[in-house]
């Protein structure tokens, strides 16, 4: 299981939690697992999220590896000028 940290704005959509345990080996599985557990998160994830895994901000890659002890944070999708 991986502990996934949500930004607190998502708490209301995740049963009041801002830390969620998900069975996942990749970023893609983290996102799929979140939606499976809390369907209310679907819109936010569809709107675009990045995932920080051990401090590395993954903007797109669903295949990036996640380990059970990884620090995982959901962030809003990054863009720039």
């Amino acid at each position, binding site marked *: 299981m991986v502990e996934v*940290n949500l*930004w*607190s*704005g*998502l*708490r*209301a*959509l995740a049963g009041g939690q801002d830390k969620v345990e998900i069975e996942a080996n990749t970023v893609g599985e983290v996102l799929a697992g979140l939606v499976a557990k809390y369907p*209310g998160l679907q*819109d*936010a994830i569809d*709107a675009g999220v990045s995932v*920080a895994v*051990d*401090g*590395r*901000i*993954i*903007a*797109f*890659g669903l295949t*990036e590896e996640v380990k059970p002890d990884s*620090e995982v*944070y959901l*962030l*809003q999708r*990054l*863009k*720039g*000028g």
Partner: protein
Amino acid sequence: MALDGPKTSGFTAVGTTPNRPDGLDKVTGRAKFGADAQAPGMLHAAIVRSPHAHARIVSIDTSKAEALKGVKTVVTRADFTTGLKGENWNILENVMAGDTALYDGHAVAAVAAISPLIARDAIKLVEVEYQVLPHVTNVDAAMAQDAPIIREGAANKSVPAGLHPNVVRYHESGHGDVDKGFAAADLVIEDHFTTEATHQGYIEPHACLAQLGGDGKGELWCCTQGHWNVQKICAALVGIETSQLRVTASEIGGGFGGKTVVFIEPVALALSRKANRPVKLVMNRSEVFRASGPTSSTSMDVKIGMKNDGTITAASGTFRLQGGAFPGAPMEFTAMCAFAPYALENVRQVGYDVMTNRPKQAAYRAPGSPMAAFAVESVIDELCKELGLDPIQTRLKNASHEGTKASFGPKFDKIGLVETLEAAKAHPHFTAPLGENQGRGVSCGFWFNHSGETSVTLALSEDGSAQIVVGTPDIGGSRASMALMAAEELGIPYENIRCTIADTASLGYNEVSHGSRVTYASGLATIAAARDAVKRLCGRAAAKWGIDEEAVVWEDGCAKPSGPNAGDFDPLPLAEITRTMGATGGPINGHFEATPEGAGVSFATHIVDAEVDPETGKTSIVRYTVVQDAGKAIHPAYVEGQFQGGAAQGIGWALNEEYIYGEDGRLQNDLFLDYRIPVASDLPMIDTVIVEVPNPGHPYGVRGVGETSICPPLAAIANAVSAAAGVRLHDLPMSPPRIRAALDAQKDG
């Protein structure tokens, strides 16, 4: 690509400053920018724009325009695809209004004619009947209960109940217990700040040349930061398949985020299809200001608690951004960047995305971050002043470093904030004496940087030269940087490499040139493609020598046996291998197609001296120093250029640039005359210090440098002006009337 940690030494090409490959074209006037293209039989287009901030479009009568001699066609919203959803619908609605004009300058119809003058005459003949609706352009006013609603149902699920429908997105993040943290502080300062919308101010107006036939095949030439994105969006908006539209990016006359989206391109395509002729469409400057994508204006509250020794105990901020008549103001970046420079146990940030009757905002260099730094670093400056603390020492005491839990959540990887602060402290500027009416300001700034989908092809020629084909439009000299990185890998001279920006039909998908991603992502891709080619080169040498490919290494532009056991062969230069490549297995190319993940974040510290004339409130910037972590500077002169450009734009934002809307909701300063960007005589030389703390996510340690440079200036200048004037300025721009008013208020108070 697998990384064993970035290469940090032994560079031969990287770090030098050769001439750029497009230099000759650009100093002789032959470089082709957006408006420089022509096509046989080309028509010229012009757009009818709403004079109202908010109005229902009752009817559009195009008959008089169509009757004008030389007019070939007119389009309205009816000529675009229906049934779009999500962001594509938003973009179409912005490109050509549907039922309602949502801001002054919103496109409502367009004309194509045989000359630009006739097109301009024709748009005056398009009769639009409007029913004027109440409007709102200020962010705080748009959140008030009695504000006119821009569009019902635009809010997403993140928005807490009870907020006005104009609040369309909400962000909240942080950690710890801020109330406890504030209670532990010796001094807490809370203050309110505002910033006005600014424009990227690129000198080249949006321009394109479009051709679209009834067969659904199209060609588009345009100035853009990302032509694959243009391809995808335009195809959707005019209802053709993405691959049937070939988009070529012209030389681009500045973008800074403002050319990451489309405005006129779908209109030109629709006109071209209807007229069955190529159509050129060029915005004028007024249209650029009224109807492209300026940045958000903000209303912000920031509260920070500090111990007497300078330790920050807690920080919180509320950031309200208006992004025009559509969702998308980058408030989450404002929130996430706000306190990122500091290691905080207790931090909380809230963001609101608010719609108003203004043009749809677009990215502008580190979107959202400069405003946050302005508010946060102003409060830190006040705390330092009240507590008698040194501004750099205090920032060092609280600075984020590797392993710090960032204000936005995760732990930082290797970062260079401390190094920039130390370099700033050691810079002679920081301790230089100040003159009368002068003040010094310091600020830190943070930006994430970005990576994104990237394709690069590197092809070797028989004579041993190389061409790199990349898909990220060159907005600041990136072709030179790519060639340097390829030269480094291949071991051939920089001059023997040509880097070209491919059109969408000639290379795989590339994300837009944004987020300071080009030198990072296309650079990484170029290195990977070069290594891919080198592997093939080594394979050819191995075959020639009859040894294993693994026994061949690439050094100094030659294949060599990896050691005595591999065999005794003379080094085989690249040109020797390519000379016979057709007969030894065919062309030798290298490829990279992937989404690199590992754009390192970056920090900067700026020092600025400002002089304020107390009688007139006029500010002069007398000295400016940029210190920024570049990770690794590939072409240091262009890195300096990015630092200087960001600082200059920040100076404009801080002092004079602003969108000024009248009571009627119309933009009052839609020319460079009154949208006052810095001119040459406004600025001093801008000193730069390049700090290099390698990014672990890039083979040479590159971090993006384009955006972070605009994060600290607003705050650094506000701190300098406040020190010089003896009064704190809370609102940008710090125009002379504002500074005079603050001085008068202080005297009266």
